[in-house]
């Protein structure tokens, strides 16, 4: 049971991480083109989305709890995790030579970008869950039909 729980957790974390890497890469392409078009990077730049996505994934630990969280509690924890991600990314940006934080639009642009990735991630995960719910509903209908007709299940 515990092994199953950790496996489930790992799958979810990997799913989130992959999604974040993709969205952050897209965000970097958009922000880079808009704010700092002429900059040239080395191969190290490929590491950035991986690191930022790791920060984003680790920050979701806050939204987990052994207890059953109410919707209100969950929203508060989500907001805290967003603030943590924003703080961590901006802190990294301010200390990185490759990100021109001296330009006035870079930090707000980055903060907005992080928010956009956060919102987009939740929208995409919602659609994945909706697809899963559709599958569950089809299986539920089959289960109920089978139980009604009296045949044994499971």
């Amino acid at each position: 049971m515990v092994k199953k729980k950790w496996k489930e957790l790992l799958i979810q974390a990997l799913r989130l991480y992959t999604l974040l890497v993709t969205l952050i890469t897209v965000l970097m392409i958009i922000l880079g083109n808009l704010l700092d078009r002429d900059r040239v990077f080395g191969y190290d730049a490929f590491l950035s989305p991986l690191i930022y996505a790791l920060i984003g994934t680790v920050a979701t630990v806050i939204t987990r709890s052994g207890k059953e969280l109410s919707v209100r509690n969950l929203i508060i924890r989500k907001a805290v995790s967003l603030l943590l991600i924003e703080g961590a990314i901006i802190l990294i940006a301010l200390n990185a030579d490759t990100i021109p934080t001296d330009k006035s639009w870079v930090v707000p642009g980055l903060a907005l970008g992080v928010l956009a990735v956060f919102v987009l991630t939740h929208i995409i995960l919602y659609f994945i869950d909706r697809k899963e719910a559709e599958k569950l509903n089809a299986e539920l209908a089959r289960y109920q039909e089978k139980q009604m007709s009296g045949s044994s299940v499971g």
Partner: protein
Amino acid sequence: MKLEIRKIPENEPEMVEIRYHWITDEIQEIVSFVKSRQGQLSATRDGQRFEVPVMDLFYAESVDERVFLYTASDSYEIRMKLYELEDLLKSKSFLRISKSMIVNLMKISSVRPALNGRFSAVLKNGEEMIISRKYVPELKRILKGSES
């Protein structure tokens, strides 16, 4: 309490007989158990005792260490722990969906996504309840069993 189990000829009906001096909690629990095996649960509402058909149950919920049964329109209190009820009703399409709730799968009209990887179950009477992430794999496992 003395326990007697006796093999009887096939032409005689099987029965459970309880001989008592007073109806104690223990006796009541045994009666509840036997009735639940027959598709009924002994529960109370406003101090009155009712036999609630299991198939009419929508869900059972534990609140402050008391367990309540809910049908489409009524609620009853049952003198059982939620985990005991869960064990009893496992074979009757009931499933634990959160720490304090078990639901009748036959009374779910649909499942939809809720926040943070959780799902919510919309019941046939319109009520909606959260299925904790912890119990989603078990729900999937049971429903998948009906695919073949």
